[in-house]
């Protein structure tokens, strides 16, 4: 038995997250789609909070709501003829079918499966703890190699992005 606040929050946030994700699909204007996307991300961040992931939630807001949409907006502005248009391609039917099928099947599996102890656990059963320290320890301890690789990846992405959009050298 969870507290009502959590339940309300979960259903509300889930509805917003999924609903605005669908909105991204339906929006006719690309800028509207970006805004809806951000809404979905923020709602997801709220879901993260219900999962006691405060650090991840903040990072989610920072990166997904703060940084990536801005990049997208820039890209949209830099490609004017693309017309802020969010039209569908030839693959709209298979896309919707596949997406729907995937969601349904995974949902069925998730509900149907035996998750053992994890399935029996509830949110109320565990206390809310601070995660930043533990994540930091894990990142710089057990996962340090992955951490370094990720940093190299970021660097490579940075350089790659710069190289890609750099003006051609004047002859």
């Amino acid at each position: 038995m969870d507290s009502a606040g959590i339940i309300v929050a979960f259903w509300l946030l889930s509805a917003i997250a999924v609903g605005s994700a669908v909105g991204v699909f339906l929006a006719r204007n690309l800028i509207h789609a970006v805004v809806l996307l951000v809404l979905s991300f923020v709602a997801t961040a709220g879901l993260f909070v219900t999962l006691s992931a405060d650090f991840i939630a903040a990072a989610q807001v920072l990166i997904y709501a703060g940084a990536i949409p801005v990049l997208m907006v820039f890209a949209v502005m830099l490609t004017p003829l693309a017309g802020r248009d969010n039209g569908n391609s030839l693959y709209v039917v298979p896309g919707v079918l596949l997406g729907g099928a995937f969601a349904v099947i995974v949902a069925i599996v998730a509900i149907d499966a035996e998750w053992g102890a994890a399935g029996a656990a509830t949110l109320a059963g565990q206390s809310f703890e601070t995660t930043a320290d533990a994540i930091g320890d894990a990142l710089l301890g057990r996962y340090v190699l992955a951490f370094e690789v990720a940093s190299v990846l970021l660097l490579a992405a940075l350089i790659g992005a710069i190289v890609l959009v750099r003006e051609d050298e004047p002859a």
Partner: protein
Amino acid sequence: MSALRMGRRLPRRTVPRALMALGALVAIGFVAVNVAIGYVVIDGRLDGQWYDVRDLGIGVQELREWLDDRNAQQPGILDFLGQHWISYAVTALLGATGILSIVGGALLILIWVERRLIGRMQIRRGPNRVGPYGLLQPIADAVKLIQKEVLMPRGADKVLFFLPPALIFIPMIVAWGPIPWGAQMAYLDVHVGILFLIAVSSLTTLAIFMAGWSSNNHYALLGAMRTIAMMISYEIPLSIALLSVVLLSGSMQLSTIVEWQSTHNVWLAALLPLAMFTYFFSSTAELNRTPNDIAEAESEIVAGFHTEYSGMKFGLFYAVELGNALFVAALTATLFLGGWSLFGLEEWIPGYLILGAKISAAYFLLVWLRGTLPRFRLDQLMKFAWQFLIPLSLLNLLIVAVEASVFARWEVKGIVSLGLFAIVNWAAAIILVREWARRMGYRPEREAVRQPILTQGVGGLQAARRLGAPEMGTQV
């Protein structure tokens, strides 16, 4: 592009009466809650034991007991509600109204203060007509703004045009949550406070973009693009500067940072001069304030992203601008100036007064800058961020990281190590800034010959060459 000509008038009565009544009720409730808070505080029922606002204490506890009693007597719908969440909800409501009222009240005063101060700096009087010393001027302004017709430009994106003023208001209010006003006196004392603040403030960017884009106005779009470019550039040095605070104090929680300063009897401003400078300067960029107010540079792009907004929508932008400035002042005071602590004086003086005084000082600095400095150009600012602030703050972070690890390992009690750090950091700050500026090609002595050449004789091109002015069009 005049909105009058292009614009489309909205129906005269935009707000239904029922909604207005509801608003009035909310406002009354708002005032009532504030009175209640004041009563609880003044009444001394908290007994000087002010804890986290979440545990607002006795009043809420009484409420819960009452609820429990009700629940025990007649189980029913309250069964579902009868958990501790209700206290959270109540305290959240209380805190939110508290913040809103404090910030809102402060904003009203700030408008007057800023105009007055700037007026004084400009040998003017500033507002002095409405009320004593013009004190009621902001209220008059607000009334005027509320009464003003809201215009929407033709071709504007309707939804996106209406959203931003509200969207931009939310982060401004939410950001105030973690600021501690006294020992354990914070509304939302999150553990990842600084990250939270950075994340929340990054939301502003999108709202600004929406405002600029939806206005269907080149000035607005230009302002929005400038804002975005500047914000994503300056968020980096800002975050790095805040990271050095985190490193030294070992926590992202604002209250812990203040306590750290309090227990070590030192302000982080003394320890991290470069970080503070970086933070403050980057904040002026994030805030679009002089000398970095290129996003709404009125001499270039009229008013930037909110060019097309009028009435209370403009009022909200204006309020957010001031509120964010105040918030930056508050964060500066909290992180670098010791927050609510004042070397033991907080025993006698309430913490929120101390913090208020510090916020005022920091805010005054912002006003002062605004009253004094011209504005940079966008490319100059970008260059400054990427070539100057980011490398410097990274270097500074390196130094602080070493110091923090030293501090964590060999905890020398007292002032010795911190004093040493302060000396090292100040020296590093001075040397780094000086040398890096020189590396960037800044040569103050090169500009020594600035005065024009004085001559008695007249002439044309030949005389100009004779005067020995450098070849025209070349940079000295």
